[in-house]
C-alpha cells in the first residue's frame, strides 16, 4: 500500500514535469530594431522590431508588445502597433492593455508596473517614463517544435517637446508573461533618441545638475527640485547647506522672486552632495486666485547667498516651464 502511494507520488511528479515541459516551451528574442535617430516634435516615430519565437511545446496565447516611452508622449492614446508573421496573413491588430489589468504570473501587478520592476527604465535618468503594453487582438495556437518570425510595426505620435530619451522594447505572451528571462525578449538601442521640438530640453539621457519632477505640472502641483552636485564641480561642492533662489514668471509677464536663505528655501541633503526641495509654487509666491505662473527660473546658493549655481554650473538660471499635455 505504501509502495503504491510512493508510485503515485512519482507518477504525479512525472506528469508535473511533463506539463512543465509543455508549458515551458516558448522563448522570444528581438533580433533587431529599426528606428530613426531623431524626428521633429509632433511627428510620427516609426519603429520596426524583428522577433523570433521558438516553441518547444504547443501553446495558445496572445502576443504582447511593450514600449518604454516618455510619459509626455501619452503613448497610450498616441501609439498604434501591428505585426505580421509566418503563421498569420496580413497585418494583425494590437490593443492597449489597460493599466490595472494583472499580467500573467505577475503576482497581481499590471503590465506597466511589472515591466518597470523586471525590465527597468533603460537607463533613463528622469522618472517621467512609462511602459505601455499592447496585446494582439487574437490568440494564436503555435505547433510544437516550431519557430515563428514576426515583424512588429510601432507608430507613436511624439509630443512637440524637445527631448532626448532611451527607447526600450519588450515582447512576451499572455501565458508566460515575464515569469523567466527566456520567456520574453527585450531591446534597448544604444543611441539616445532625439525629438527636435520646442521648449526646454528634457534630457533623459545625460546626468543633469538639476531636474524638476514631475516634468509636466501646473503651479498648483507640488514640484520637486533636485540639485546633484556630484555631476560636475560647482562652487557648492563644499557647501554644508544649499538654498533656492527662485523666480516665478506670471502669465502677465511679471517676475516674482524669492531669493533668501530661510527654511522655506532650504534644500534637504540626500547625501553625496545631492540636495532636494519640494515646493508648492502658488504658496511660495503667494499668488492670488486670478494669477498663474508660466515658468520658473532658479539658482542654488550657499547659506550666505553666494556660490550661485545655474544651468550647466554657470550663471544662467535653470528654467522650468509649466505645461500639462
Amino acid at each position, binding site marked *: 500500500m505504501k509502495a503504491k502511494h510512493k508510485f503515485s507520488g512519482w507518477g504525479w511528479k512525472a506528469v508535473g514535469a511533463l506539463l512543465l515541459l509543455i508549458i515551458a516551451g516558448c522563448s522570444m528574442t528581438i533580433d533587431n530594431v529599426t528606428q530613426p535617430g531623431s524626428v521633429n516634435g509632433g511627428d510620427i516615430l516609426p519603429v520596426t522590431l524583428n522577433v523570433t519565437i521558438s516553441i518547444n511545446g504547443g501553446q495558445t496565447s496572445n502576443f504582447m508588445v511593450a514600449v518604454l516611452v516618455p510619459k509626455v508622449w501619452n503613448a497610450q492614446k498616441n501609439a498604434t502597433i501591428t505585426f505580421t508573421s509566418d503563421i498569420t496573413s496580413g497585418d494583425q491588430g494590437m490593443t492597449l492593455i489597460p493599466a490595472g489589468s494583472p499580467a500573467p504570473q505577475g503576482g497581481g501587478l499590471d503590465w506597466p508596473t511589472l515591466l518597470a520592476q523586471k525590465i527597468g527604465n533603460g537607463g533613463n535618468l528622469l522618472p517621467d517614463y512609462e511602459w505601455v503594453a499592447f496585446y494582439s487582438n487574437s490568440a494564436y495556437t503555435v505547433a510544437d517544435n516550431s519557430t515563428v518570425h514576426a515583424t512588429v510595426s510601432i507608430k507613436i505620435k511624439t509630443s512637440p517637446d524637445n527631448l532626448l530619451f532611451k527607447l526600450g522594447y519588450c515582447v512576451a505572451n499572455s501565458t508566460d508573461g515575464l515569469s523567466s528571462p527566456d520567456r520574453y525578449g527585450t531591446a534597448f538601442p544604444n543611441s539616445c533618441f532625439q525629438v527636435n521640438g520646442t521648449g526646454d530640453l528634457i534630457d533623459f539621457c545625460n546626468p543633469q545638475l538639476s531636474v524638476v519632477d*514631475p516634468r509636466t*505640472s*501646473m503651479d498648483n502641483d*507640488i514640484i520637486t527640485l533636485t540639485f546633484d552636485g556630484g555631476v560636475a564641480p560647482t562652487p557648492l561642492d563644499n557647501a554644508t547647506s544649499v538654498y533656492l533662489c527662485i523666480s516665478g514668471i506670471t502669465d502677465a509677464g511679471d517676475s516674482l522672486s524669492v531669493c533668501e536663505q530661510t527654511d522655506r528655501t532650504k534644500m534637504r541633503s540626500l547625501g553625496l552632495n545631492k540636495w532636494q526641495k*519640494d515646493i508648492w509654487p502658488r504658496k511660495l509666491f503667494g499668488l492670488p486666485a486670478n494669477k498663474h505662473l508660466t515658468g520658473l527660473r532658479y539658482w542654488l546658493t550657499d547659506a550666505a547667498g553666494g556660490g550661485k549655481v545655474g544651468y550647466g554650473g554657470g550663471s544662467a538660471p535653470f528654467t522650468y516651464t509649466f505645461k500639462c499635455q
Partner: protein
Amino acid sequence: MKPSITKLNAQEEELRGSIRPLKRHCLRIKKFILFTIAAVALWACKPERLVAPGEPVKALSGSWQIIKATRNGTDLTNRFDFSKFRIHFTDSSYTIDSLVPFIVAGNGKWAFDDPTYPFQLSFVAADSGKKSAPLLYPVSAGQRNVIMTFSPGCGLNSYQYTLQKAN
C-alpha cells in the same frame, strides 16, 4: 365441601380502590402538561420575521487631517508640510484650514454619490464648479480612513491623500 376462599389480598383491593382516582388525576395532569408543551412548541414554531442588518450611512462629520500623501506614487508625507491642513465636514458643508494642494481651494458644500456605499466624494467650492474624487473608506488599525485620489494641478499628476479624524 366447597373450599373456602380466603381473601388474602383484601387489604390490597381496598387500597386499590382508594388509589384509582389519584391515578386518573395524574393522567389528566400528564395530558395537561403534554398539551401545554405541544401548545408552547407550536407557538414557538411561529415564523420569525428576520430583518437584514442595514449598512450604516457613512459619516464624515468632524475634522480630518492628512496622514499620508503621494504624488504619482511617490510618498511626500514627510517631505512636504501637510501637518497643519484640516478639513472640517458638517452635514453638507466643509471648511479648510491651512490649505495645501487639494481638489478644491475654497470652502463650500460636499456630498457622497451614495451615503451608504460611497465611491465618490464631490466638492462644490463657493467660487468654482463641482469636483469629484474617487473615494475609499477603509478602517485601518481601528481608525476610519478616507482615501481620496485627485489632481490639483496638471491632470497627468495623480495625488492620493489619506485622511484620518484629527483629535
